[in-house]
């Protein structure tokens, strides 16, 4: 029962009190992965608080945020796990992506190496994560590309990298798009700085997630956070999970 009128404008994130009382949110666990300093935390911050912070501090280990997002007759509550980008923290990653229903893998359009990292994350997710996981590919920092075309200056990067090529785009839209198509990922180019495309990622993920699947799932699918914790019960995603009234949405 897909709605032809469905558009991004209807699926604005709903903050707390904006919820209709009869809509119990559906929890969706989402994880962000990608190389260091590509803007994972900034994307989340833009989505959750609609803010941008220059020189956002690096994430150590992981960070957790939630944001609700209204989609037609449902409210989806994203439980967002933001991860550390440095390769060394890799051993923590399974703990975050285990049982995630969605993943956003982020690269930096001005750094070609960051796309390689994305590819290895996608492989790992496809191998080890939830088989139904919805993966979105996000090429962040397109604002830098624009500004580079206009002024040939690259302000934010100048302090960060010595490379001369930094000022321009290093990953073309076509290349990334082709990869996304081939691998079956959603694809976006974004700017956490000015907000371009950020909301679209989450909205499209929300649409693509087989919600009825989650809703009808028994409790055992709830996020067992820590693979190493042994007999622990894992994350309880709330009592509403099993009896969400919103039913089938798509």
């Amino acid at each position: 029962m897909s709605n032809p009128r469905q558009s991004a404008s209807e699926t604005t994130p709903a903050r707390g009190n904006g919820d209709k009382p009869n809509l119990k949110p559906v929890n969706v666990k989402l994880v962000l992965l990608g190389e260091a300093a590509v803007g994972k935390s900034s994307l989340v911050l833009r989505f959750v608080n609609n803010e941008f912070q220059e020189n956002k501090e690096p994430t150590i280990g992981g960070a957790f945020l939630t944001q609700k997002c209204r989609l037609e007759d449902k409210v989806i509550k994203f439980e967002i796990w933001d991860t550390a980008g440095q390769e060394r923290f890799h051993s923590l990653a399974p703990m975050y992506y285990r049982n995630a229903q969605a993943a956003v893998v982020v690269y930096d359009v001005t750094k070609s190496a960051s796309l390689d990292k994305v590819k290895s994350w996608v492989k790992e997710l496809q191998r080890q994560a939830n088989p139904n996981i919805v993966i979105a590919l996000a090429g962040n920092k397109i604002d830098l590309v624009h500004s580079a075309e206009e002024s040939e200056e690259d302000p934010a990067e100048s302090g960060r990298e010595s490379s001369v090529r930094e000022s321009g785009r290093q990953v073309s839209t076509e290349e990334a798009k082709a990869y996304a198509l081939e691998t079956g990922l959603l694809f976006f180019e974004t700017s956490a700085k000015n907000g371009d495309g950020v909301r679209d990622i989450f909205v499209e993920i929300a649409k693509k997630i087989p919600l009825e699947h989650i809703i009808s799932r028994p409790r055992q699918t709830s996020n067992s956070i820590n693979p190493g914790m042994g007999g622990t019960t894992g994350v309880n995603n709330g009592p509403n999970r099993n009896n969400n009234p919103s039913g089938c949405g798509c």
Partner: protein
Amino acid sequence: MATFATDKDLNAGISQDVHLGVNSFSAVACVEDRDISLATATTEIFGRFQFLKTLLHPNICEYVEIVKGKHDRLFVIFEYHMNHVGKLYQRDEEAEWLIEARSNEKKKKEINLSIKLISVFYLIKQTFDGPISILNAKISGACLPCSYLLNGDHMTREWAFQILKALAYLNKNNITHHNLAPSNILLDSQGKVKLADYGLYFMTKGGANVDFPIGYPHYIPPEAIYCSANIDETTEEAEKAEKAKKLYETTEKVDVWSLGIILAELATGSPFWKDNDKDISGIFSALWKLQSIAEEDEKEELWDRFEVTALGLSDPIIDFLQGTDDYENADLRKLVRTCLEVNPSNRCSPEQLLSHSYFSSIYEDGISNNYNYWCIKPFLQSQKLEVDDDFLEPLNKDVLDGMPLSQIYYFWKLAGGDVESELAKRGYMSSTPPIERIPRTVKVLDGKEEGTTKDTAFLYSDTVYSLSLKELRQRLKSVAGPNKETFEWDTDYFLVVDENDMNFLVDETIDEENSGPKNDSLEDLLGKYLFPDPNNNKSSSSSVNGQSPPPSNNVKSPLLAREKDVVYQFQRVALFSELLRQYPASRDEIIHQAKVDIPPFLRGKIWAAILGVNGDYQAIYDTYDKENEKETQTDRQIDVDVPRCHQYHQLLSSPVGHEKLRRLLKCFVSVNKDKLVYWQGLDSLCAPFLTLNFNDEALAFNCFHAFIPKFMKDFFISDNTPVMQEYLAVFRHLLSFHDPELSRHLNKIGYHPELYAVPWFLTLFTHVFPLDKTYHLWDKILVGPPSLPLFTGVSIIRQFRDTLTKTEFNDCIMVNELFPNVDIEKCVQSALSMYKVTPPSVIYRVHESDAKTGSINENKKHDRWWEQPIPIEEKKQELAPRISLKDLVKLKSYVLVIDTRTEQEFARGHFPLSINMNPAHLEQLSQALWQEKKKYHVVVGVRGESGPQFASDLVNAGFPRVAVLNGGIDVMRVDGGEVVVCACACPPIKAPFTSGAKNIVYWKCTQNLMN
């Protein structure tokens, strides 16, 4: 010699008269090409300024601090003296008649000399602010009699020499003045030259960060004009201009030209340029012409030519330069002409000029070496020694005398001083709304703006405001006087938290005092072992050796109030300065005192002392490889992390700060090669050390280097998973041990330490707290045991207990957002309280630092089954920690030992006073267990049995301080070596307990063999 005494500390006695001056300017609103980056011009200036603080020379004014005010206005605080060379030809009212006389062309030559003399005398009168009798007294006893006064030449020579020495010193530190003018050649009370404003060009990156030009038009050299001129004719010209520009920006010879002009003015008493104040463009074109005249014929002496007379130089100057006056001193003329060499490449440097023949007499006299013209003969070598005046005459002495200026400024601020409001009070900061400042007319042709309303709040002014220290002197009078010697910190009252004592034993001794039925709640118990809380020092302090508590009442106030109390800080700084001077011998005492609190002013050095940084750390640091050429993955990671590290901080966000942090991290990586690697988070961890020792990278590094093995051993090996997992497991044990209810709840909702505590421990909280909170936390962690961070983690999470126990996972995890509310002082106190009641074996870690406080296995061979390390997976599953037999024995009557073996086994032998029960009956028997009212609960089982599981059940049932005896009953069967435990073999008493319909039985031993 004092390891942490900088040159500045050692030379603190040099400045005798204390004046702090402040002047102010604004950076450009935004630097071009950087409009988005936070590293605005202001931050750049801020970062560059820091280096200036390290400069020290007898002939320069010390830079003390830079402060950012409203509208990013910067205030520079520096050593200030009321008099300057410019006063010689200052046209104020008192000197009015001089100008009149000077304007009288006819009498010019006759009065020239007298002008000089009178000016000099006038100056000296000003210099010695005091009554004239002092001046006379000084003169009569001086080795250079009154004739000195009459001999302006001598003074000029002294000044010139001192200026050159100062310039040479600055050059050696890669600084050029670029702003030299009579008004910033200050003179101290001894008539000694003190250069000021020498850092403006440096800190503004050659003026690039500010909108105003640097350099006084009357004193700038020709190349300054040449390079700023817009040349677009030929490439050759442009190239030349480029070259000149480079020369101008980098060369130290700019200042030599300025000095030449100043000296000429001093010699003649006349301004160098005619129409001194009016025609600046005239000066510029004259300089321009000068350049071309010089280029015409390089052989002929420039100043002898006729053309120079037409450049607008004032007549006395021309006469002086060309030697047509009756001025006797040919050497000075020669010097000035050397200085005024148009081509900067041929001009001498300050260093070279010091050996000019003009100064030969100075070397002969040897006077300049001690800069003391007024010394009384005979002069004894011993007089050169600096005597601590406070020691000799404790009364009637200026409190601030001999104190480093930065310290004076620090106290001045504590006493309520604030540069911005100070200047505002004097009407300096009046600002006009921006709309009012828009220029009404702009002439496009020459880019001149007219009709602009100038706003003093945004302009540069070289006006210097002197800060009044009256208030501060008054505040400090009471403490610096005779009290000072009687001031004695009671050093024993923190004995309970001494490094060697702060352990389980302390708990025991104190528990003995109030033995008997323990009804006091956990909170009560915690209250007794508060960390060096100055609030309850009285009882314990006097009890130890009868010394009186510190005289100041301020010790009683909370830490933040103490840090703002100028009197208290004055005492603390005095105490620690003295201790630091005696370091490393005084290290124990420093640690001891640091447990009370650490004065923020000396924090960097005190931390270094606590960490035991010693020896020539600079030399050690210099040998390290900081810039490896090879670009590695690690380097790239450091490069992206550094500009994101604590960027709210002024110093860390400046380019200089980035550079330093990067260097420190790279150095860390190269020093620890093959052992430790760079993990994200190390940047945060390094930040406190860098910010506290911004001008002493070597010290920062050595602190960092000493800190990590002590508190974070193996955290940064390339695969730290086992280390971190164990750390987090112990953290979880601790939480269960001290707050079973909270632990159970968090466990139930799946809020595991792995999810939230990694950044806590991996950065020792620097990543979760802003730096100012980190300082306070680390103040305590540094003097505490290596496991204190674990306890801190527990006490942090317990501060949010109420929130956490009520919420589900999603809200729980947001607890990090509550972090700004953490009360550090409270947190550390409760951490220490917990530490003291925690048996060392409970927090034992395999990966612990070597300096451990206790371990299960002592030094024995690991040959028994319970001496093997517990597999990490097992450790992570268990909620309750293991306790060693040694610790269990110490718990004595405060522990309830629960034996889970069968009745038969129990009857054959058991731990004295233990009870025996079937683990399955916990639910029914918990009431009975509670009735035992014991603080500790230790489970004793047999190998491979469900002891740990039963302990977890106890935790879940809410029993506090549950642990499992490591090794179970087996440890008591063998000869325990030094641990003497008699297993009791008494016939146990059956203790029936009725619960519902069932009658459940447990056994109890009543025979106490322990005592």
